């Protein structure tokens, strides 16, 4: 379902992704692990056509991400690391605009929308503005949106970051339900080892290179570890990777201060 061959991405002098290759099969739950700044999000952004690779090739659902971006976009759903909802619209409006952007047939989409809203427990909040939602509710709404157009592959970039354990468990149960129902292929990045444990296979990426790729059990066996945490530390080391606050983070803070002042 996903085929990556010698993928490279440079940002000027920064070599974010250095020649990675891997494949993800249909219906697989594939975990992408690595320290902050390892190249996880850059890889996802290339796979979902937001970034053009410097070199190498990637096929998603059989389509080349550079040559046929529109076909790729049609067959994928994405839950981004940062929220990407329109907060000034209601939940329902966000979903309706999504359906329009993907040219979905009205009647069938409504059924699917109601089914998904029911699943994540947002049916009775559909008419509320998204800015009144909690972090967990926004995430759940994004999952509904990402699945509305019945994608073949769902990318989840740290989908449960900053959520409470209850919400995290719920999100996992939805994901599993959909996987068994629709044969969805899942590509996930995460920092939580108990989530990585649930994956069919995991790739560990560090400084833009894949340092290990196997099933969680095989990785533990190979390194003689009891836990994935230990596997991770053995492969990557203990030191904390520095990552500068991006301009985006700074602007977010500024916006919060601003909005705070106006209220």
């Amino acid at each position: 379902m996903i085929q990556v061959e010698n993928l490279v991405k440079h940002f000027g002098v920064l070599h974010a992704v250095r020649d990675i290759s891997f494949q993800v099969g249909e219906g697989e739950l594939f975990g992408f692990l690595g320290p902050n700044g390892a190249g996880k999000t850059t890889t996802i952004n290339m796979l979902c056509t937001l970034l053009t690779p410097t070199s190498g090739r990637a096929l998603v659902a059989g389509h080349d991400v550079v040559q046929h971006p529109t076909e790729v976009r049609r067959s994928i759903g994405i839950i981004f690391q940062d929220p990407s909802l329109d907060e000034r619209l209601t939940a329902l409006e966000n979903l309706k605009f999504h359906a329009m952007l993907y040219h979905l047939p009205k009647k069938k989409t409504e059924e699917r929308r109601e089914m998904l809203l029911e699943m994540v427990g947002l049916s009775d909040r559909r008419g509320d503005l998204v800015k009144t939602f909690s972090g967990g509710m926004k995430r759940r709404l994004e999952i509904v949106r990402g699945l509305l157009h019945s994608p073949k592959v769902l990318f989840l970039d740290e989908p449960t970051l900053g959520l409470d354990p209850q919400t995290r468990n719920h999100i996992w149960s939805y994901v599993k339900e959909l996987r068994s129902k629709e044969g969805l292929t899942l590509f996930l990045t995460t920092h939580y080892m108990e989530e990585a444990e649930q994956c069919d296979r995991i790739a560990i990426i560090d400084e833009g290179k894949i340092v290990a790729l196997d099933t969680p059990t095989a990785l533990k066996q190979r390194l003689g570890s009891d836990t994935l945490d230990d596997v991770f530390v053995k492969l990557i080391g203990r030191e904390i990777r520095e990552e500068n606050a991006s301009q985006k983070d700074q602007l977010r803070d500024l916006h919060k201060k601003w909005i705070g002042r106006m209220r």
Partner: protein
Amino acid sequence: MEFQSLYTVWLRDLVRFRRDRTQILGGFSRPMLWLLFLGVGMGPVFHSGAGVPYMHFIFPGVIAMNLIFASFLSAISIIWDREFGFLKEILVAPISRSAIAFGKAASGSTIAVLQGLVVVAFAPLVHVPLTFEKILLLIPSMFLIAFTCTSMGIVLASRMTSFEGFGTIANFVIMPMFFLSGGLFPLDGIPIWLKVLTHLNPLTYGVDQLRWILSGAHRFPIAFDLLFNLLFSALMLSLAVALFKRSPA
């Protein structure tokens, strides 16, 4: 198919505009400020060659001001969309980059025309004669002017990553364009360097059209006004599409 994508981008902005009271309020207060204070205050000292009262002279200029403000504000919303993630939702959708740019230009222009009509509604209050035919002509003309400004705004926004930049745009783009449009003072007898700038300013030709519709007076041939605005927006919009294609999410 592509039309529906364009329409979606347009519709979202209009739904958001309907909820944004501050922007609607700005559309009312801005022209009021200029018409009542400047129009009334400058009236006694102003003698234009055409012999019209100052209020009549600045009226098309004030329409143009509301158009340019609303256009740039709409275009700038792209920066918000980028910073708050929604732009990604649009960029990963299976629609073309030109549909996004055109949709944005169309929504910005529509909102700007609504803001321009607010000024038009002030006409009876300040004794600017208006007929039904004039209003019918004003709408497409306002749309063309707004389309020019919005496409310019999109080009600027696609290169900007921080919202603080909007103050800079207001100071270095919107205000100069407005001051040098012939909307506030006649362009006769100004120094040559100023004249060159006014002739490069697309808003000059916009104000000229509006003044022609409202009072019949104009500096340039109307066909030239229209052509300049059309070519300018075509250029800006193709630039915007090209920039969108390379735009980082």
